């Protein structure tokens, strides 16, 4: 019987009594997320499936993207130090459950890869950089089943100085559609934000977002002339499967959309799912990216410590045992290492899809679900971050539609209104899914 595995098949509860219940719970949670997202899709657009219902029959399809936040690169394209500094800053988000302010920190690293540069002294040389692609949901559930295991992993992977109480919430917070109570595991604890990294913290960097993205991306979208939207950023703008300003979401959504629904007339639709184990992964660092001062590649400095190459959950850059030089003496390209972002720009992320022919017909084009606005200037659209707007909202003052063919329709005849009504129902249903991200 099909069962969803933990990300990368990691076995954090090996030989612990809590293992079996945890694995069952994890499977159930992923399955529920799939089924909820499938249920939110219109009946005419059921190309997303779960292997708990039907087996996938294809080989895995990798979809890749760069680990460094594209939205930051667009804002600071020509000053690398500013760009890397911007990516290293922490933001705060109010996760209150009762109206009182509960600010929790998160990183702005929004490509499903986050990192932390450990230094021996504040402002001193970097001694180790840790990269993670692990969704917070896994750690929340792991802690629910076996907090002690989580504590041991923090001491092992983050710092021996971690204290148990530092990992627990002192105030209740909202996470997704659920509430984490006082005493529960705190996914935004100090060792996962200000003093280290264990798993993802950006509000959009969740496993739920990945599943939702893949589900919604199976819907083909029509532009104002009823032509199918196939260009990657236009598709991201006209749909609701994520942030059109990122590298990851548009790439994943476009890959899913084009695989499920070929543009060739007469070609059959393919049902698509996310391959088990479902997760977002560190694929690898580019060959030869880490070099010595002569430009010769260094081996053994960048290692996947959780997962494996191609399915990495955590990677560490540090001098291997016996190294004669430290991180301050290595180079990325021809430039000395000073920031984690330099390395992130050489890291490739990946997720895997699989398909099956489940006999679903090619679904009709769906009306646009959102649109994008841009400043009314002559800059090329690819170097701009766009405002992703609801259809009923126009563009704000000084902004115009980034892609005029995706602008909202004027009020139309009854049939069109009915279609839009369907669209609104659909949108609100997945908005619920996404609301807690």
């Amino acid at each position, binding site marked *: 019987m099909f069962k969803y595995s933990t990300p990368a098949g990691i076995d954090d509860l090996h030989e612990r009594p809590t293992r079996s219940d945890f694995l069952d719970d994890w499977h159930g949670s992923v399955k529920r997320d799939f089924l909820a997202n499938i249920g939110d899709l219109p009946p005419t657009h059921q190309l997303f499936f779960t292997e708990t219902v039907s087996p996938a*029959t294809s080989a895995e399809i990798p979809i*890749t993207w760069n680990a460094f936040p594209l939205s930051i690169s667009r804002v600071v394209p020509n000053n690398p130090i500013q760009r890397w500094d911007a990516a290293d800053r922490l933001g705060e988000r109010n996760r209150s459950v009762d109206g009182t302010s509960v600010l929790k920190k998160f990183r702005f690293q929004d490509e499903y890869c986050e990192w932390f540069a450990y230094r021996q002294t504040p402002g001193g040389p970097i001694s180790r950089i840790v990269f993670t692609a692990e969704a917070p949901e896994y750690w929340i559930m792991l802690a629910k089943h076996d907090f002690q295991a989580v504590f041991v992993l923090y001491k092992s992977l983050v710092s021996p100085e971690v204290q148990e109480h530092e990992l627990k919430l002192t105030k209740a917070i909202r996470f997704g559609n659920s509430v984490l109570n006082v005493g529960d595991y705190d996914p935004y604890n100090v060792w996962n934000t200000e003093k280290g990294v264990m798993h993802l913290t950006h509000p959009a960097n969740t496993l739920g977002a990945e599943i939702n993205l893949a589900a919604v991306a199976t819907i083909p979208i029509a532009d104002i002339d009823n032509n199918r939207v196939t*260009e990657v950023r*236009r598709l991201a703008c006209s749909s609701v499967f994520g942030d059109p300003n990122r590298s990851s979401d548009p790439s994943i959504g476009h890959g899913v959309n084009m695989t499920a629904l070929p543009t060739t007339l007469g070609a059959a639709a393919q049902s698509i799912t996310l391959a088990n184990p479902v997760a977002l992964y560190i694929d690898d660092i580019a*060959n030869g990216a*880490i070099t010595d001062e002569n430009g010769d590649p260094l081996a053994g400095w960048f290692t996947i410590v959780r997962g494996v190459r191609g399915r990495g959950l955590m990677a560490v850059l540090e001098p291997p045992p016996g190294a004669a030089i430290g991180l301050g003496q290595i180079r990325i*390209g*021809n430039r000395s290492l000073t920031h984690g972002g330099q390395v992130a720009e050489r890291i490739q992320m990946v997720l895997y899809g699989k*398909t099956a022919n489940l006999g679903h017909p090619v679904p009709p084009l769906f009306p646009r679900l959102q649109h994008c606005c841009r400043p009314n200037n002559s800059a090329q659209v690819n170097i701009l971050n766009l405002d992703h707007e609801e259809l009923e909202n126009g563009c704000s003052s000084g902004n115009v539609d980034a892609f005029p063919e995706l602008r909202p329709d004027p009020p139309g005849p009854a049939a069109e209104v009915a279609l839009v009504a369907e669209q609104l129902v659909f949108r609100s249903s997945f908005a619920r899914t996404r609301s807690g991200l």
Partner: protein
Amino acid sequence: MEPLLDGADIQGNILPGFNRQERYLVGFTCNDGARLKNALALVLPHVTTMLQALDHRDERKAAFVAAEPPPLRKDLWLNIALGPRAVRAIGADAVFDLDDEEFSFAGGMTPGITGDASAPTLPNGDPNPASRRHWKVGSPSRPLDLLLIFANDGAIEERAAPLLEAIASALGVAPTYDEVGRLIPGEIEHFGFRDGISQPGVRGRVMHQGTERFVTTRYGVPSAHGVDFGKPGQPLVWPGQFLTGQPVSEGDQPSLPAELTNGSFGVFRRLSQNVRAFYEDTEALAGELSAATGIGLAPDRLRTLMVGRFPTGAALMRHDQQPAQDDSITAINYFAFADALPEITLTDGSTVSAAKADPDVLRGRRCPVWAHIRKVNPRDLGTNRGGPIDTIGFQILRRGIPFGPPYDHLNPKNPDNDNKQRGLLFLSYQRHIKTTFSILNHDWMNNRDAPQGGGFDLLVGQNVPNNGDGRHANKSATFFGPPPDTSTVGVDFESQRQWVVPTGGAFVFAPSLAFVKKFAAELPS
């Protein structure tokens, strides 16, 4: 408003490119500033400009329209480029401020930038020709400081000799590298495929022979997704993608001193091609794939799949089989991968036929994911680096030419087949090496799963894993049958030998004429 470019200030091999029969590349190792300035003074009157090269392009076009062979000329052309040591030696340090953020130019062509092999020896102990320590040109012990690029249509070495002798005398050293490149009939490279077909168009105007004209001719191609075109399939990009001090978008008004404007960073790669291994290995691989898939895959078909075009240049996205008649210059690049393209009518009334989409584009059935032309220019596809407009921003001006004698396929035992070196003198111009060449080369060709997942660029890409070995490893790819095959479980296969090996190269700066004038010594008349 597109900028008015100074055609007398821009070197002609940058724009519009030298389309002569021969190239003669000569490299010097010399970081004596005074001597280099003397050499620049000697070079200055001979540097071929964009305007001169445009004359020739017009002649070629006229001959083409008249169905005549390309005109041959006797005037010797010359362009130059400088390495970082030379730039520093002549006191032009401001060039380093134009370098990209990874200091590609200043730091040189290291494996960290290119993904090249670094091990100095092969497993059998022989010197590794791919290691830059053993490069024919650009090795750390003999850096390329001054690169001369001569062009002619016959007897190029003889015609270049007097000037070369004077330059060598001024520098006080003999060349550390010289090599002739010649077009092979059909403008093919050594593996037998037509090369240099797809180039980006450059926005901008130029005064030429008293008339203002576009740098890139517009054929009346409809814009698509916000992209304008010269010829069909030839996107127009702003000149700042290639030239210093030029705009990168509408309204952009960069300002640089005159001597720093209109320069370009060059990538020179001496790429040795092992033709025998390419043919032997593709024959064996075709047999393996045929057995594994049950599809009769001929070796020449597999080679076509690896390129993405038939040997004549006809694209797989336009033709299932080699067309009886070659595509015209307006049709040969008119294709995308995800989307079908409709028939269009150009300004002159001619039509360009429609092109099909790939019915399973992430797997690549009509044109494989690992086809060279898709790896370096995925056109309308989403990539690990963004979308089609980003991809256009990564494109470079390629100015390569083959070196060495053509492989003798009629007589495979011809000793020259194995005794003589052959390959491509790859040369490209771009404003920033990191954000163009490095993405195409290192991030895409050398990467199994980018710009889309499914295979290395088997033709040109390199796989030198992070395992400390420093040598080329096998390159893998996944084969999916062409339409009407709909199997979703591909066949994995690997190429074991490296058919294209970098055996030299350097990052250089190709300056403007104003730069050469400023830094050239004043010589007695």
